[in-house]
C-alpha cells in the first residue's frame, strides 16, 4: 500500500504553514500524527499532493491548566493526555477517554488536534469536546478565530474550519462534578459502536447540571441538551435515566454498518449512556 506521490514540507513556523496552504489551496493538507491521514493516503482515499507536517511548529504541544480553563495545544498527543499528572486531576475525563482510543502505538502519535479536526464520526474526542463545551481555536489568512465544539461539526469530514485554517488549540472550562467516558467497541483499536461522554454535578443529592454527548451514532457527534434536561433537578434515579436515554435516542441517527444494524446501535447507545450516567453520578 503505497500512497500517491506528494511533495513534503516541514515548516518551522505557522506563517509558513499558512502561506503553503494559501499557495496550494485544496491540494495541500496539514499532517499532525498522521494516524488517520496516512492510512487514508495508503488506501488512496485521500489525495494530498502537498503534505505539510506540523511537527516542527512551536507552541502547539502545551497543556495549560488555568484557574477556570484548560488549554490543550493541537499537537498534544493522546499519550500526553494520559501521562500528564495535573490533567488527571483537573479533567480526568480526558485521560479516561484517551485510554479508550486505539492502542498504545497509535496513542503516541495521534493528536488532539488531528482527532477533532479529522471530522470522522468514529473519532472519540469530538463528542468528548462537545460534552465539555470546548472551544476550538483556529488560525488562517484573516487571523485567529474561535469556534464552539458544539457548532464545529457539519457532516462527516466537514467542519466549520476552512481549508486554509489550522487548528491551534482546544480550550475547555474546567469540568465540574463526576465524569465518565463509556465506549462499546468490538476490540481494542476499534472505533466505537457507541460511546457516551457524561459530566454531572450533584448538590445535596440532586443533579444541578449535566452534560451529555454521543460518539459514532450519527455522521457528526451528538450533543443532547434534551437528555441533559431529563437529569437536571432529579436524583438521577431509574426514571430520570430512562428519560435521558429516550431523549438521546431521539437525537441520534445511526447507520447500519459492520458494527451492526440500526436497532442494535440504538440498544447499545442506551446501555452505554446508562452506564456513563451511573458512573458519572457515582463520582459526582
Amino acid at each position, binding site marked *: 500500500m*503505497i500512497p500517491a*506521490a506528494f511533495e*513534503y514540507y516541514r515548516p518551522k513556523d505557522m506563517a509558513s504553514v499558512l502561506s503553503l496552504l494559501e499557495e496550494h489551496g485544496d491540494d495541500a493538507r496539514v499532517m499532525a500524527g498522521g494516524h488517520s491521514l496516512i*492510512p487514508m493516503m*495508503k488506501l488512496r482515499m485521500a489525495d494530498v499532493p502537498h503534505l505539510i507536517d506540523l511537527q516542527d511548529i512551536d507552541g502547539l504541544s502545551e497543556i495549560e491548566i488555568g484557574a477556570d480553563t484548560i488549554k490543550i495545544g493541537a499537537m498534544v498527543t493522546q499519550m500526553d493526555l494520559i501521562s500528564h499528572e495535573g490533567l488527571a486531576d483537573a479533567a480526568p475525563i480526558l485521560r479516561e477517554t484517551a485510554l479508550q482510543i486505539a*492502542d*498504545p502505538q*497509535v496513542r503516541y502519535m495521534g493528536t488532539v488536534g488531528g482527532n477533532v479536526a479529522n471530522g470522522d464520526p468514529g473519532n472519540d474526542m469530538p463528542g468528548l469536546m462537545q460534552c465539555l463545551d470546548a472551544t476550538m481555536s483556529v488560525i488562517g489568512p484573516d487571523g485567529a478565530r474561535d469556534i464552539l465544539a458544539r457548532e464545529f461539526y457539519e457532516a462527516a469530514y466537514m467542519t466549520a474550519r476552512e481549508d486554509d485554517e489550522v487548528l491551534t488549540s482546544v480550550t475547555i472550562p474546567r469540568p465540574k462534578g463526576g465524569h465518565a467516558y463509556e465506549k462499546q467497541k468490538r476490540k*481494542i483499536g476499534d472505533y466505537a459502536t457507541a460511546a457516551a461522554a457524561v459530566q454531572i454535578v450533584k448538590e445535596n443529592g440532586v443533579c444541578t447540571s449535566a452534560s451529555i454527548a454521543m460518539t459514532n451514532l450519527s455522521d457528526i457527534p451528538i450533543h443532547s441538551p434534551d437528555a441533559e434536561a431529563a437529569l437536571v433537578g432529579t436524583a438521577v434515579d431509574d426514571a430520570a435515566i430512562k428519560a435521558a436515554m429516550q431523549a438521546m435516542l431521539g437525537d441520534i441517527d445511526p447507520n447500519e454498518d459492520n458494527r451492526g444494524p440500526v436497532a442494535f446501535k440504538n440498544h447499545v447507545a442506551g446501555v452505554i449512556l446508562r452506564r456513563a450516567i451511573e458512573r458519572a453520578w457515582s463520582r459526582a
Partner: protein
Amino acid sequence: MSNKMHIKFTVNGKVEEFLAEPRELLIYTLRERLNITGPHIGCETSHCGACSVTIDGKSVKACTMFAVQADGADITTIEGIGGPDDLHPLQNAFKEHHGLQCGYCTPGMITRATKLLEENPNPTEEEIRFGMAGNICRCTGYQNIIKAIQHAAAEMNAAKEAAE
C-alpha cells in the same frame, strides 16, 4: 514522481543518510533500503504491530510513518535491542517461556515490550495486556507472551537492584 528528499536519521546507533521520495514508508526504508528486516510487515494497515519500532522514545508502527517524518530522529529496532550472542532479557524470556510459535510478531512484540517496561518496570498482568494491545499474535493466545514479559521484568528489576 515527486522530488526526492535528503533524509538522515540514526538507526540502532548508526547514522543513515539517503535520498527518498516523501511517500516512502519507514517500514520499507528499514527493510528494503537498509536491510534491517527485524521489523515485519503483517497487516500494513496500522493494526498488527509487527512493524513496531521505537522512535525518539515512542513505540511506533513503522508502516504508518513516512521515512521523511523521521528525519533527524533516533530509531531503535529489534536488531538494536539484542542479538544471538547478547540476548536482551525480554528476548531470553520469550525463548524460555515459549512466548512465540511462528515468530512473525515477535520482533514487534519485544520492541514494544522494551518501551512498556521502561515506562512501567513492574506491570500487572492487566497492564501488560493493555500495554501490548497494539501487537497481535495469531499463534500463542498471548498467555506465554505475558508470562515472558513478567519474567523479563522480574529479571531486569533484580539485575537493577543488584547493581545498586
